[in-house]
């Protein structure tokens, strides 16, 4: 029976963009009922492979066979007709349409005269969401009003709705803190004989879900093996082409207990946050742990001057300030590295260098004319701080991988003379190598007296980097955990709203 043969068999798939080879003779197979991890650093060719399998990009050469028949889709619809569906990392939802309309795009059900039956669709959505364990979303809500995490869940549910033979999940947990939701969905899905290609940067997810993984590096397949019997270090080595010896180097605390706090909030309330109080001192890395949509985005926006305060106060270096805009926040030394890199972080049509130099461009100008030589000096110095190769400075920032874009944003923040960095999930969707550079940047910044306010969906990062961590739940701070007590388990249970007993167990 076909259940023993592979669902997908790709042979020598090749794709080049101009001079760069994105995929170089990649071959692999996927079998029914298996989750196969697809690993690789940014730019390794993962997303090209996803695009090819999804029907967005047509390969230059190579054969793909699905269920014994040649597979060469030219668009998403053709791919779906063959049972391939994708949850995209970049989320393919339309913010101005309702959850229900989004779930049934592109062909929502219509009645005899061709009108979309909204009510029926919304009812169906209601049951679907319940079945897939997505709570707190009304089918008529506009997707643009949902948190990023919920949007990602909707994206995943939509990909699963059509009961595909082959499901592609591209960084499905990038914005989801409660990963067990997805894992249990996947487990129940496999029983139906679907094959899942699971693209991620997170090794623990691969270990949890996959029996086998494929690793790409520079467009080539460098490993295709059962996960049992290979070590994390072997995986890293294969991904990076070098060994990552020590994941989180030990760090000495460098907190300045005497100076007034760099940033302090006192009973702060704004749209989406209630009664927030904390101090952040020079040299301190203060973590925020929270599941998605617990008010952390609003808190970051309030601290960056993007949200009007309803009550409470913010102090910078002991003096009360009113942060009316990101500009006043920056003048006070507070710089935000935002949640949505692509839409909030980068200037899409400018060069990488211009993206870095924008806040301090006056320093490189004489009589209001920019001196390119001076700008380059400043930019190169900043790029060195974040280990961004100079060859990336000239091209348009669009051409850079997510990791390098994030480095660019960090370089810009450092240049802006920040005293306090607000980092909102800075390692989301970046590769292992870049992650370590980001950790390094954070540590160096703190060692030199900077203060860091750090939200991450990866609890491991909070545990290893932070001096202490706050936990947010339902728009307010519910706990503070000291460095000695930080464990992922404790943070997760606090973030999920569990009360902790005296001895620290849930």
């Amino acid at each position, binding site marked *: 029976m076909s259940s023993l043969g592979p669902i997908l068999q790709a042979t020598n798939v090749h794709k080049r963009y101009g001079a760069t080879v994105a995929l170089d003779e990649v071959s692999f197979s996927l079998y029914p009922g298996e989750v196969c991890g697809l690993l690789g650093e940014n730019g390794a060719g993962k*997303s090209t492979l996803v*695009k090819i399998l999804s029907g*967005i990009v047509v390969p230059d050469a190579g054969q793909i066979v699905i269920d014994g028949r040649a597979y060469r889709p030219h*668009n*998403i*619809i053709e791919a*779906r007709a063959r049972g391939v569906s994708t949850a*995209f990392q*970049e*989320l*393919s*939802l*339309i*913010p*101005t*349409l309702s959850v229900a*309309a*989004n779930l049934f*795009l*592109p*062909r*929502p059900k*219509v009645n005899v*005269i*061709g*009108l*979309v039956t*909204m009510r029926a669709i919304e009812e169906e959505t209601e049951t679907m969401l319940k079945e897939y364990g997505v*709570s*707190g*979303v*009304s089918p008529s*809500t*506009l997707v*643009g*009003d*949902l*948190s990023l*995490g*919920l949007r990602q869940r909707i994206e995943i549910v939509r990909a699963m709705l059509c009961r595909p033979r082959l499901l592609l999940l591209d960084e499905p947990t990038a914005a989801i803190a409660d990963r067990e939701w997805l894992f249990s969905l996947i487990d129940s899905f496999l029983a139906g004989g679907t094959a899942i290609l699971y693209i991620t940067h997170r090794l623990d997810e691969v270990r949890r879900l996959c029996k086998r993984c494929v690793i790409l590096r520079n467009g080539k397949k460098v490993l295709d093996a059962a996960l049992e019997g290979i070590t994390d270090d072997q995986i890293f080595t294969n991904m990076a082409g070098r060994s990552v010896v020590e994941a989180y180097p030990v760090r000495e605390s460098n907190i300045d207990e005497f100076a007034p706090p760099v940033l302090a909030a006192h009973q702060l309330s704004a*749209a*989406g946050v209630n009664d927030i109080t904390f101090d952040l001192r020079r040299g301190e890395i203060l973590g925020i742990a929270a599941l*998605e*949509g*617990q*008010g952390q985005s609003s808190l970051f*926006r309030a601290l960056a001057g*993007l*949200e009007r305060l309803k009550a409470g106060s913010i102090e910078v270096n002991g003096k009360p300030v009113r942060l009316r805009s990101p500009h006043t926040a920056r003048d006070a030394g507070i710089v935000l590295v935002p949640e*949505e890199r*692509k*839409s*909030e972080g980068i200037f*899409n049509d400018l060069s990488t260098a211009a993206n870095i130099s924008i806040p301090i461009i006056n320093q490189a100008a004489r009589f209001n004319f920019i001196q390119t030589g001076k700008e380059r000096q400043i930019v190169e110095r900043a790029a060195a701080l974040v280990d961004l190769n100079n060859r990336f400075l000239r091209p348009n920032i*669009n051409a850079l991988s997510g990791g390098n874009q994030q480095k660019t944003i960090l370089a810009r923040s450092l240049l802006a003379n920040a005293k306090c960095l607000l980092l909102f999930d800075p390692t989301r969707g970046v590769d292992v190598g870049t992650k370590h550079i980001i950790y390094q940047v954070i540590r160096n910044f703190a060692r030199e007296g900077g203060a860091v306010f750090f939200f991450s969906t990866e609890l491991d990062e909070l545990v290893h980097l932070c001096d202490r961590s706050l936990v947010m739940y*339902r*728009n307010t701070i519910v706990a503070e955990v000291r460095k000695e007590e930080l464990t992922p388990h404790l943070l997760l249970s606090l973030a999920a709203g569990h009360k902790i007993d005296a001895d620290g167990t849930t």
Partner: protein
Amino acid sequence: MNQTSRDRRRPLPSSLFAALLYVVMFVIYSINAPSAITLLGITDLLNNTIVLAIAAAGLTLVILAAELDLSSVGVIAVSNVIVATVSTKIPAGPFVSLLLVCSVGLLVGLINGWLVAFLGLQSLACTLGTMIMCQGVALVILDAPGGEVAAFIMNRLTDTVFGIIPVAGVILAAVVSGWLLLRRTRLGIAIYAVGTDAVASHLTGINVKRTKLGVFGLAGIAYGLAGYMLSAQTGTGDPRVSNSFLLYVFAAVAIGGTSLGGGRGGVIGGVIGAGILTVMQKLLFAVGVADFYTNIFSGLIMVVAILFGNLSAILTLRQRVPLIRRPNREYSVH
């Protein structure tokens, strides 16, 4: 589990404030010109509104899909001269010429759509081209004002049904109902999706190119219809009649609260916007504003109207901090 869906208000209908403004202006107008609320006055007002309203309806579709279209005035000019040359000369002239102008509009629209969607050209630039071309064609068909529009068109379309309902009102109602239906079709939903985020639409499997082709085609038909109605008003052909018209069409759409960035708004707003612009001119005349001041006032009112028209969008958006979230993605549509 999350706060997001509950504490945010649903957006107000984008045309709400424009509708309120229209009511206010109409009341002031009818106080100054009591004949306004007679059947004759209303018929007259609707007759004056309908050309702009239908053209604005067409343009709204294109703008909702985040494209621009300047070809309206070109198509209106061609339609006008076609009606003026054909409608009296051939059997069943009024009907044949109606068919003809709709076909011409559709053709121009499809050319626009093809250039924009399939060749990936900038809509502003290439519809400027088709607009000029159409104006040229109009001059070739009729090189000077003249010609004759069939009496049937002139009389019937500007009159009333059963002596109580203005024909123009019926046509407007038909346009609005057509929109209310279209909005609920797959194409209608796709128009909003494409206008909001073409790349995401592509990833969900919406045919972005065909959707754009569709809106340009529909808009072209609307422009043809607008030209037909214009001929009914003027009773004659004039290849330059619509030259001053273009900016008013855009103003009507903007006043109606449709975002020029695409994805937000609707045809009803455009129709109301056209109504506001028309009643504004009548109001200024009725109040007795001297001719040379008219432009100052109409410009002023237009700015206020656009402000009003966008109030709902502004009020809704105030609660979402990143005012503009246009995600830029790495996948390309073309």
